[in-house]
């Protein structure tokens, strides 16, 4: 019971209530409430734009079919992002094996030598963060996206990625430093 209490103490949603009510949830309601977060997380994890549809589909199909087993021990968002991460990881592996794709990794971050116009264009396309993330090593990117952008705790990410917690902290530290530097470089004169 102590473990259950510890887990439950993190959340505002009583597990029993969630377990009961989730069975009445419509797929459309689940999807419409969380598709934005899932889609964005998948994209930020590095899945190519052409594969995001599939990963999001797989995530929600998995979630929908598993909903009865969701016990409310994490927030619904955490649970969904966890599922999305697992599917994204498979997609990233497949992505790495294929050729001819144009994942975000292939896009180069504008350096200090880029013209301000280029920076503005990329800014207008809203790609700067994705490009910045793509320049991080995959482990750092995963950690940064899940912790810093999606709000999971380092402990949750350690469980998800299955690495020691200290490793997550280390990756997070490195990623934050890299992002700080990258953002600072954006303001450097061309």
């Amino acid at each position, binding site marked *: 019971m102590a473990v259950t209490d510890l*887990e439950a103490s993190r959340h505002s949603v009583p597990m029993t209530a969630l377990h*009961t009510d989730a069975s009445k949830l419509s797929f459309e*309601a689940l999807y419409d409430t969380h598709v934005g977060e899932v889609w964005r997380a998948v994209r930020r994890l590095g899945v190519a734009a052409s594969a995001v549809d599939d990963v999001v589909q797989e995530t*929600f199909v*998995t979630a929908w079919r598993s909903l009865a087993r969701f016990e409310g021990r994490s927030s619904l968002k955490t649970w969904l992002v966890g*599922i999305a991460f697992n599917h994204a*990881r498979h997609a990233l592996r497949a992505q790495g094996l294929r050729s001819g794709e144009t994942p975000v990794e292939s896009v180069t971050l504008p350096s200090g030598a880029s013209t301000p116009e280029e920076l503005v264009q990329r800014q207008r396309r809203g790609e700067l963060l994705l490009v910045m993330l793509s320049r991080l090593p995959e482990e750092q990117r995963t950690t940064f996206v899940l912790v810093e*952008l999606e709000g999971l705790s380092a402990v949750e990410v*350690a469980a998800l990625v*299955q690495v020691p917690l200290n490793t997550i902290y280390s990756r997070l530290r490195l990623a934050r430093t890299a992002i700080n530097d990258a953002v600072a470089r954006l303001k450097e004169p061309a």
Partner: protein
Amino acid sequence: MSELSDEAKAFLAAHDDEGLPTPEEQLRVRTAIRSAIDAGPGTVEAPRSAGSFSLAKVVAGLTAALLVGTGGALLLSREGPSTPQPPAPLEAPRVATPPQPTADLSAPLPPAPEPTSHAAPTRAVPRARPAAPQPPEPIETEPPREATSPPAPTTVAEPIDPTEEFRLIAQAQASTRDGNPAWALELLTQHERRFGGSGLLAEEAHAARVKALCGLGRVAEARLEAEQLATLNPSSVHLARVDRACW
């Protein structure tokens, strides 16, 4: 630990919507998923990815960390598959069926006012929520039991339909995204009246309220709301984004 610079926080806040799907993409994928779900039991074998992410592992890991002591590496349990079973392939064509109307989430609600109205909906109920989760108030459907009666169930006697709650929150999120945060606040007020602080999406409602207030330029209120979320749910997954909402 190295922290994000204020510059980086501002950058992340400005790019918070980066990577979101377009309405067309949302609809296309929703239709495809609905088709896959409706395809029947042939595709119903559930991948195990959902179960692979268990907070039980987290707690086990924390316990292990305490045992190891400071300086020791926390190695969480590696039992069980770390990755999902290969997900069931989605056979459904992407756009095989006519798109389902998104009105699914909007039908019973009154139409949104024009974005010009920034009047702040007032809250009907003070937002006093417990710091720790409390079991839901049981709905009294019968007189209190005698001491000799079997223990009362701890679950809600009359479960509420969560779809309504999800619909309200989804519409509020979309309203803010679509430039109508005033309507989002109205929807969130409805949510609060209907579900109070014990809804399934109480955290989402807090986060959505912060973003809506930011959208209206009511920064001080937004920060107050964010602080309230941090107090009530210090581990909320929404804190990071909420913290940057008004940058």
